[in-house]
């Protein structure tokens, strides 16, 4: 009876469905590994069939301040409760077919007193997602001509922080095509003043780039020391060989501000570590940046 049971389990095991992208994933990893060994400076990355989709947010977004008439009228239909700033789903694009799935939720901010800012953000969100959707459809048409392949996009938003003063809204795009990729983008708004808070605007000068980067590297080393499973592209000791290391944050690195008034720096999948690490966030202790903050208005 033992053997019969084990045979059954083995059969189940051998019937694990094999995704067709396995082959390309292995080949890509072989190539990456080999290049890494040769050059020791190649970032581990699985490019996907739909790489084009991932690039969407990397592109420069030119957004007109005036919203389109159609867009403005759609927003006007939303009842605005006096002075309350809200984020809601303005529009949703969905595709649900066997090999093609898309769920794209477009957020819209309402209730900001600064309508220009509100419209420009909302129009940016709409433009980003419309583009994402159109590219998805184009890629889908292309792939339909071929036999296999799978394409999925999930895009939406999360409100990270919503206090009297601050609204931090994060939009994500998850693409699945050969492999998965996740991209997060944040906007942080001062509701009272009606301004968009950028990372440089929080600091007196550019020294924040170095100071924050050094702190993040320390945090990375601590996390790696505490858990073998954590891997970041950062040197732990001099002997260690590392791949194209994390050097510093970009001047406009993704960030948001927590309810407690802490600055959080965010990195996309692959940005500072191997893919399985996913999205990585680092809260910067306020005392580290206290000297260079313009004020304690937002960050405490």
């Amino acid at each position, binding site marked *: 009876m033992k053997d019969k*049971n084990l045979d059954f*389990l083995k059969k189940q*095991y051998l019937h694990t469905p094999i995704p067709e992208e396995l082959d390309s994933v*292995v*080949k890509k990893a072989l190539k990456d*590994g080999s290049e890494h060994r040769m050059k020791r400076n190649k970032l581990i990355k699985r490019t996907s069939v739909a790489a084009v989709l991932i690039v969407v947010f990397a592109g420069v977004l030119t957004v007109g301040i005036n919203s389109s008439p159609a867009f403005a009228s759609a927003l006007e239909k939303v009842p605005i409760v006096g002075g309350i700033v809200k984020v809601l789903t303005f529009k949703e694009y969905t595709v649900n077919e066997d090999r093609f799935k898309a769920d794209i939720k477009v957020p819209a901010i309402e209730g900001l007193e600064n309508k220009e800012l509100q419209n420009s953000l909302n129009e940016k969100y709409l433009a980003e997602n419309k583009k994402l959707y159109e590219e998805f459809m184009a890629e889908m048409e292309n792939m339909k001509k071929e036999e296999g392949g799978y394409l999925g996009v999930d895009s939406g938003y999360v409100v990270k922080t919503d206090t009297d003063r601050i609204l931090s809204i994060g939009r994500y795009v998850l693409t699945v095509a050969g*492999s998965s990729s996740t991209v997060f983008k944040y906007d942080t708004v001062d509701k009272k003043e009606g301004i968009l808070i950028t990372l440089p605007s929080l600091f007196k000068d550019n020294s924040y780039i170095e100071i924050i980067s050094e702190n993040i590297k320390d945090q990375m080393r601590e996390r790696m020391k505490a858990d073998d499973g954590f891997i970041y592209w950062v040197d732990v000791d001099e002997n260690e060989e590392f791949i194209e290391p994390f050097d510093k944050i970009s001047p406009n690195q993704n960030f948001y501000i927590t309810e407690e008034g802490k600055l959080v720096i965010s990195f996309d999948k692959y940005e500072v570590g191997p893919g399985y690490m996913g*999205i990585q966030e680092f809260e910067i202790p306020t005392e580290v940046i206290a000297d260079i903050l313009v004020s304690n208005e937002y960050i405490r």
Partner: protein
Amino acid sequence: MLLKNKYLEEQIAEYAVKHKENFYRLAYSYVKNADDALDIVQESVYKAISSMDSLKNPDYLKTWFYRIVVNTSLDFLRRQKRNVAVGEEILGSFDFGAVDSYGDFDLQRALDNLPEKYRTIVVLRYFEDLKIDEIAEILNENVNTVKTRLYKSLEILRVKLSECEEV
């Protein structure tokens, strides 16, 4: 020296391509979803090639490779337990992975519920058809420990099954 390396790399690459489905199934048996299993295979193959200097003797290619996959899978599970990354939770609901179609079987459940160090041995011995000494090599344990755990696993499985049958 260089030629030897080139040859070794080819051997590893060939092995990876030939056994990719074995590695995938093994990874899947840990994480139970396609996307994570793919990530693990990718990571394992990448590690194998980029750190092939750690393979001292090419005769151990097979156990060395399996060891990388097992360790990468276990690392992944450990990390998942205390992953601080936000976002992924939200995204987790968006899962294209194949549905666990045999989840209802008591037998399968009994296997899945085995502690990791026991389950791994059952999988490697009976599903991947590896020899006891190969498994010992992969897990860096001595042969007797592996044997003991294997018998213990079968015992647990049998007890659980008979319990099920009685009910």
